[in-house]
Structures are given as C-alpha cells and as structure tokens.
C-alpha cells in the first residue's frame, strides 16, 4: 500500500460524518425504488 496523507482528528471526524450522511442517502434511495411499488 502506498503512503497516505495524515489527516487531522477534526478532518477525520468531519469526513466520517459526511460519509455516514451520504451512506444514509444511498440506502434511502435504494429502498425508495421498492416503496414506489407499494402504492
């Protein structure tokens, strides 16, 4: 593995929060496709 840049703890926390929010959006999108069937 190549060397990776060192991130500050604040950056790491901000990135993690961003990732969690975006992952939730993706999961909602996936489920919404099914919800359209249950009208």
């Amino acid at each position, binding site marked *: 593995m*190549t060397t990776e*840049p060192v991130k500050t703890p604040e950056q790491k926390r901000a990135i993690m929060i961003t990732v969690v929010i*975006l992952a939730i*959006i993706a999961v909602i999108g996936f489920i919404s496709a099914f919800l359209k069937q249950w009208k």
Partner: protein
Amino acid sequence: MATAHHDHPTGLSRWLFTTNHKDIGTLYLWFAFIMFLVGGSMAMVIRAELFQPGLQFIEPDFFNQMTTMHALVMVFGAVMPAFVGLANWQIPLMIGAPDMALPRMNNWSFWLLPPAATLLMLSLVAPGGGPAGGWTMYPPLSSTPYAGMGMDFTILTVHMLGISSILGSINVIATILNMRAPGMTLMKMPMFVWTWLITAFLLLASIPVFAGAVTMLLTDRHFGTSFFDAAGGGDPVMFQHIFWFFGHPEVYILVLPAFGVFSEIIPTFARKPLFGYTSMVFATATIAFLSFIVWAHHMYTVGMPMAGELFFMYATMLIAVPTGVKVFNWLATMWRGAMTFETPMLYALAGVLLFTVGGVTGLMMSITPVDFQYHDTYFIVAHFHYTIFAGSILGLMAAYYYWVPKWTGHMYNETLGKLHFWLTIIAFNLTFFPQHFLGLAGMPRRIPDYGLQFVEFNQMSSIGAFILGAAQILWLYIIVTTIKGGKKATDKVWEGSNGLEWSVPSPAPYHTFETAPTVK
C-alpha cells in the same frame, strides 16, 4: 500535512494496492480507454451490418446484443469511469489536497470495475447470449423467458458498477467538502470541481434507485416476485418510471463534468476569467435539480394522463434555460479574448457547438405530440450521440489534451492532436447528422435491416463511423508517444492557465500538497 515517506511499491503491487489518487486516476483512465475501444468495436459491428439493407454479417439477435452492449459499455464502462479518473487526478490537485479523503475505498472503487466489465463481456457467451433488450432493460424484454442468463450477468454487473459509483461519489463529496486548502471557499473552487461535486450528488441520488430497480428485476426473474410482471399483478411500466428516474440524471452525470472541463479550458485559451462564475454554479445546480423531474419525457408514448405529459414537457423545456446560461457564459468568456486554438481549445469549442445541436434536438423532442413521431427512431440515436459523444466524449478528449502535459511531463504532438481533432469532428458529423434525416423519415432504431429508401444516409453514416473508429487508433498512438517522450512541459504548461494544479511541477510528483497551500 506530511507523509511518512515518499517511496512506493513498483510493478504489479503498485497498481493493485495503490491508494494514491494519481495512480488510481491513471487506472480509471486506462480502463475507460480500453472500454471505449471495446464499445467502439461493437459500434463498428452495428454500422457494418447497417451499411446495406438486408442481413449481411450477423443474426438479428446478435445485432440487438451489440446495440445493448455498446450502450452499456460506453455509458458504464467508458464515459463514467473516465470522468472518475479525471476527478481522481484533478480534484486533489485543484483544491490543494494531498489525496482523496478515503484513499483505500478509492482503490476498492476502481478494482470493482475490471471484474464487473469481465462479467458483462462473459454475458455474450452465456446460454442465450448477452442482453438484447436495449440498455434500458425494460421488462418483459429483460424477463424470463425472453432474456437468458446473460441478463443475470448484466444485473450483477450493474450492481457492482453501482457500488463502485456510489463509493466514488461519496469519496468525491467527502474530499471536496473536507479537504480543501485554507482559503479555498466553495465559491472559489474551479468550475470542474463544482460540476463534479454536483455530479456526485446526482450519482448518489440516482444510482441506488437503479440498483433497486434491477434488484426487483432479479427477484422477478428468479425468486417468484411480480414487481414488473403484469400476469402476477405487477406493472412493467413502473420499471420504466424507476429506470428513467435514474436514467435522466444519468445523462447529466455523463455531461456535467464535461461542462466543467469546458469551463476550465475556454478561459485558459481566451486568456480571460470565466464569465459569470456564480451563475455557472447555480445553472449547474439548477440543471441537476431539474434532471430529477423530467424523467417521463423518455416515455411519452406509454399513455400518460394529459396533465402528466404537460408537466414533463414544460419541465423539460425549462432545462434549456440554465443550459443556455452556460453556453452564453462560455461565449461571453471568449468575447474580445486573446484567443488561440490549441487542440484542447478546439475540442472544447467543438464540444460546446455540437452539444448545443444535441440540446436543440432535445428541445424538439420535449414537445409531447412531436415526440410521438420521433420516439424509437434514428432521430433519437442522432440526438443522444450529439449530447453524449459531442458533450461527454469531446469533453474527455479536450480534458486529455489539456491536462496530459501535467500528468506525463510531456507535450503531445500538436500536429497529430489537430489531425485527431479534425478526423474525429468530420467523421462524427458524417456518422450522426444523416441519422436525423433517417429518423424523421421513419427509420426505427435497434433493427438490423431497413427499407431501400434509407440506403444512402445509412452508407454515409457507416463510412463516417469507420473513419471515427480509425481516428481513435491515432489517439492511442498519441497517448502512448506522449507517455514515452515529447517536448518537456513547463509547470504552467499554458500561457493563460490559472489554478493550483499548474503550481506543481510537470509531471506532477507522486505526492503533492503535503503542506496545504494557502489560497487568497
């Protein structure tokens, strides 16, 4: 920020295990180029068959597999990965970040692609052959028993490519929001970065919906559900709604990063700042929003209520407004600029001009009653090649010539670059402009045979396609020779270039911006 050391593995392990954004960008770009040649070869098969009426070389079912695979390969294998490759190379360099926010996930996002592409190719040799119902995969064309095992391969391919795209878009958003150099506020970001930020949100909102749709298709095929099976109480038209809820944003996913490329190149070669930067940002965001409320213009002919048809017609027409803002801003940027016409600028200008031709035919198709004539004809094929080839692929070619000196440290051969440009542009127009007339005269798309009245335009189109294909071999030659040698590129490369990526040496070192630059 600092890294522990500067060395990196060499050979195969460098590429397999790399977490470096430049290495991963290079992998994406090479993968996309190979898929571009594969998808292009399929187009050659299609155009060879259509050179004359009657069946010449291949069976109709294989012809349908070729049209389907050509689209899937070009959209998911070539254009999308190519723009992710550009994002990997350029976004950290343009925002002053040392790498992407999630480098190991970045590696995985790329390495999902080769197995997915292999699976898609293997569908051609699966029992029953590859997918043949069009890239839209409408049921019942994609249902059992009409589609064989190749469709399952395709569904799983879409899942893998979808996971890759979602991870990639999360990475892009996390990088842009959290890794910008001090002083680089959102409204100081280069337009390419802005267009990619908006594109990443489009990906995140649309790809999971598509993944849901193909999952339902899979369960319909093998697990006894009837989501899209009318015989079991399902609704095949619902698939079309869900598909195009993804599919229309998808076309903007393919073209918005190219708009970002045009917005970088035109100011450089006009030697003027981009006209209307703020309006460019808001126009891009508006296009992205509107792309989610126009999906049913792809399916006017299914029989929608009048109110629905009117809504989708007017919403579609509305997209011309922010798109027009962008085109006029590019024109205003060039107005009274000290313009020169190096290869990247030629590609950017041709991209804007020819994309606008595709935009105008798109506006024609947005008119519901008129679309009833155009639907499923070669007019549609002409239209979307003027948007996706002229917008996305000319944008990619422009980006290649613009940034390759920074990537390799060598200037490309300008004479060969211009030859590639003129061959591509002339052949592109020869291929696709006659298809407008074929469509208006009633030639349907996705058929291997046609009436005698369509012969001349089809022959022009096929000759154009063969030249277009051959021109890309020249591009491969230019790519290889530029990697191997050529005139040494300066750090700034272009006289009018501005931005952080031009402040690092050419070629860009393996690690850049280990200490964050300050942007004023």
